[in-house]
């Protein structure tokens, strides 16, 4: 048995991650969503976000949640992956 892991993904990249997981035969791969962007967050903000998704990580680790596990505040992106109007 390998090392148990959880994929944590910002909202902007959830669709990409989900599509790739499905393409590789893992459509139900748990994806714990966090807000986007993260790069400019302070350590305190990162710690706050981590605390807010800790339960979701535990659910994923325990196999009790599959697929996209939304961020608690419900802001989960969605722009990516929606076909754009190209005229």
């Amino acid at each position: 048995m390998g090392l148990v892991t959880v994929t944590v993904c910002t909202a902007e990249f959830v669709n990409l991650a989900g599509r790739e997981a499905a393409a590789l035969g893992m459509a139900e791969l748990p994806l714990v969503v966090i807000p986007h962007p993260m790069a400019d967050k302070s350590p305190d903000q990162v710690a706050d976000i981590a605390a807010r998704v800790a339960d979701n990580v535990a659910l994923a680790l325990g196999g009790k949640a599959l697929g996209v596990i939304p961020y608690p505040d419900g802001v989960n992106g969605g722009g990516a992956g929606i076909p754009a109007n190209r005229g």
Partner: protein
Amino acid sequence: MELVSRRIEVDDSPEAVLHLFNSRGWGDGLPIIPPTEERVEAMLGGRLPERVVGLVPPSQAEATLERVAINAVMAGCRPEYFPVVVAAVEAALDPDFNLYAILTTTHPCGVLIVVNGPLARQLAIRSEAGAFGPGWPANATIGRAVRLSLQNIGGAYPGELDRATQGSPAKYTWCFAENEEASPWEPFHVSRGYPASHPTVTVCGAEGPHNINDHASTTGTGLLTTAADTMAIMGSNHLYARGEPMVVFGPEHAAILGRENWTRADVQRFLFDNARKPYGKVRLGGAHGMIALPRWVNTEDPAALVPMAEQAEDVLVLVAGGVGRHSAFIPTFGLTRAVTRLIGGGACGLDGSDDCGCDVQASGGGLTDGLSTDR
């Protein structure tokens, strides 16, 4: 020969065809050649349409020769270019190339295709003045065919699963041949282990070219100092991920190096040693901290110099262009390796030295879509 792609009926006018392809997101915004069955079959030139080149991310859909041929028709390729397109797609699917990341990253990289060997001249793939474009049908359409193939088969459409923050002109088409005649060194593909007579493609996950303007230098050291300084920039992935930065010397610059007997290895070593940034600056921004620096960089010392590559051999050095005192630094995605493949080998199944002898047979009829995703 039986083509299996979905047939689509559309009004037989360029505007209607373009509207269809634009509205489905199947192109790049520019006009396309309608991929009719007759044109696709001509592009295939008798090769088996069901032959699989590999799986294209992120959808992991099969790149069959049929699908690649459809995209090559759309891009405007002549059938004799097709083995080059197939070899480039095959090279891009090598795990070392890291195609999933290249197609989906926020970084502005396209798939650069460098062609070597006598076939480049036979196909009029431009290596001399203006080689990076525009104006050369082979360069323009081969690069575009590879881009369209990877986009339409793999499903990484711009703004959707292609997550490039700003995109790049390098994503439309990016192809040139090395100017082997103007090089003081063995051809680039020979340096990578191929016989000079063999045609090859090398793919790089590359940004567009950044100019190296040096009108003043009369010595190799002066020229290479300019080149190294052009490479050493805070905003480049190479400073953090290293990888394989490319420098393409214009013939007049290459002549300076040849006159002074600089070997390719000498040039690589100079650029590796001198294209560096002090750690005290690197730590202020860029992508600092995301990827470990080489262990030998002393991060206790703000003056310690951070390289743009892991080792001198990773700096890719070649020659292209015509008259003038310009060269180019071509940064890459960094987390990718250049991959070289023989043209006409692998899935294409033709001896690369052969002319496939196909004629373009344009005619009407239903269109084939060449796509793996239902859009």
